[in-house]
């Protein structure tokens, strides 16, 4: 898969640009180059995965997009000028990152509460979001009473309760068992198809990135950079039938090959057993 092929993908072509990263680099104070010269265009409604080995800067890229960090060089161009209001970004961390002392309801209410919306006024939105992630009836539970998958659902509900245009996810399901991960993959896709927000999804799982995304951006390490991009043209909705189809297997093999090439391009210069 090459960049030319992406240009042919009609769905991505029509959609307007949401964010363009132009020559973005990030060098930390300890001298590590986390990202180098990244060019990336994210379009409205994309489900874009950043796929790569650890140390390739995919999480750094996500933090830059979120505004939690500023680039050393290059620009983040929101809709071709100006910055996007941060209120429109939802972020899901690798851990559920919930307030351990607060109930499920209060955790999901938090982003609205910080905007000064009262409990009563926020209740319909919170209830609706909890229903969307299949957690109705768990409003009063505290995080430690929930399973890992349920905690992650709360985390997703919290990120989505403000109806963000962009959902940034940093390896959200990496710590979950496979059965739970598949279930959450399906539920996330369902949510995305209903609302058509934009997702930037960081993962090191080839299978997960191919199953979820319409675009897979493969990254390589040292320095962190974009190595190649694949368009996953399989039609949505994707379900368990897609997960076991030959098409899916073929796409995974392609993505895997690109990933291995990316890793080898680094390993050529450094031998460290990665």
């Amino acid at each position, binding site marked *: 898969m090459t960049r030319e092929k992406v240009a042919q993908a009609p769905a991505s072509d029509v959609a307007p640009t949401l964010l363009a990263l132009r020559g973005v680099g990030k060098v930390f104070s300890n001298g590590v180059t986390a990202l180098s010269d990244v060019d990336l265009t994210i379009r409205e409604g994309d489900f874009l995965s950043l796929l790569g080995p650890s140390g390739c800067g995919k999480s750094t890229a996500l933090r830059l997009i*979120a*505004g*939690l960090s500023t680039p050393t060089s290059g620009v983040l161009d929101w809709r071709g000028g100006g910055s996007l209001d*941060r*209120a429109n*970004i939802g*972020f899901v*961390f690798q*851990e559920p*990152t919930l*307030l*351990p*002392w*607060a109930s499920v309801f209060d955790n999901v209410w*938090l*982003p609205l*509460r*910080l*905007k000064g919306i009262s409990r009563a006024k926020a209740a319909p939105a919170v209830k609706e979001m909890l229903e969307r992630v299949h957690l109705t009836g768990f409003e009063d539970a*505290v*995080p*430690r009473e929930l399973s890992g998958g349920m905690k992650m659902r709360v985390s997703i509900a919290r990120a989505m309760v*403000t109806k963000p245009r962009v959902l940034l996810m940093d390896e959200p399901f990496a710590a979950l068992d496979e059965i739970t991960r598949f279930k959450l993959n399906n539920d996330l896709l369902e949510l995305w198809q209903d609302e058509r927000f934009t997702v930037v999804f960081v993962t090191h799982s080839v299978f997960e990135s191919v199953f979820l995304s319409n675009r897979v951006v493969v990254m390589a390490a040292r320095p962190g950079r974009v190595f190649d991009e694949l368009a996953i043209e399989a039609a949505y909705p994707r379900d368990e039938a897609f997960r076991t189809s030959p098409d899916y297997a073929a796409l995974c093999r392609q993505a895997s090959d690109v990933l291995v090439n990316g890793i080898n391009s680094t390993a050529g210069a450094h031998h460290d057993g990665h």
Partner: protein
Amino acid sequence: MTVIDEGVLKLDPEEARRVRQERFERIGRWVLPLAIMILAIWLWDRICVWNGIPQYILPRPGVVLSTLYNDAGLLFSALLVTLRITFLSLLLAVVGGVGLAVLFAQSKWVEMSFFPFAIVLQVTPIVAIFPLINIYVDNQTTKLLLCAWIVAFFPILSNTTLGLNSVDRNLRDLFKLNGATRWQQLRYLRLPAAMPYFLGGLKIAGGLSLIGAVVAEFVAGATGQSSGLASRIIEAGYRLNAPRLFAALFLISLTGILIFLVLSLISHLILRRWHESALKQER
């Protein structure tokens, strides 16, 4: 979570042994210290009788108890005086400790500038500072309060400061992403996160404020009708009134234990739903 009905469930020998051991431990936790204490008191009584020790050197436990009853008016009014200083200083320690910790949490610079002075205040023995306080402060109550406060506030300050700085980084990022103000971050994130630390400090400070109050009374040498338990102990010591000395000591220990138990209960009630320290072992 499954509820195991022990009556119906057939346990294998290993599990049965575990259940039995748990039951023994549960009972033993109360019975053993109690038995040791009763034994010690009995031994104390016997030693007095066997050796014919006079009452003004070592009174028998029964005499201490009857003194506690006979001198109740005197001792309990003294206890009230000491308790007043203890609780007022604990209250001030909470207000001062948490207040300073919140102030320190606002900026690393403030913390770096002022924390060393709090340590200096903590490590200097209060008995050595008291003569100065005695010169500068006239009011007796203020003197005692200041003393007890200096002893008690530090664990609250240092624990709360640690707690306010121990917030999960991702949670901090989440608040930043949602445009939280400083106040919101303090109110909804840092203060609740610091709660277990604060309560740990409070448990220590509770005991220290009693110690502070008693020590302050000792060095102040307060006498007269508004005097606390420490003055009663000094008085009793001068008069070789050992039974009253023991009775006063007993009251002070009992107060310390009660303060600890009450603060532990408060801590448990606040943390029981969410914090690891308050969870029952589940396997």
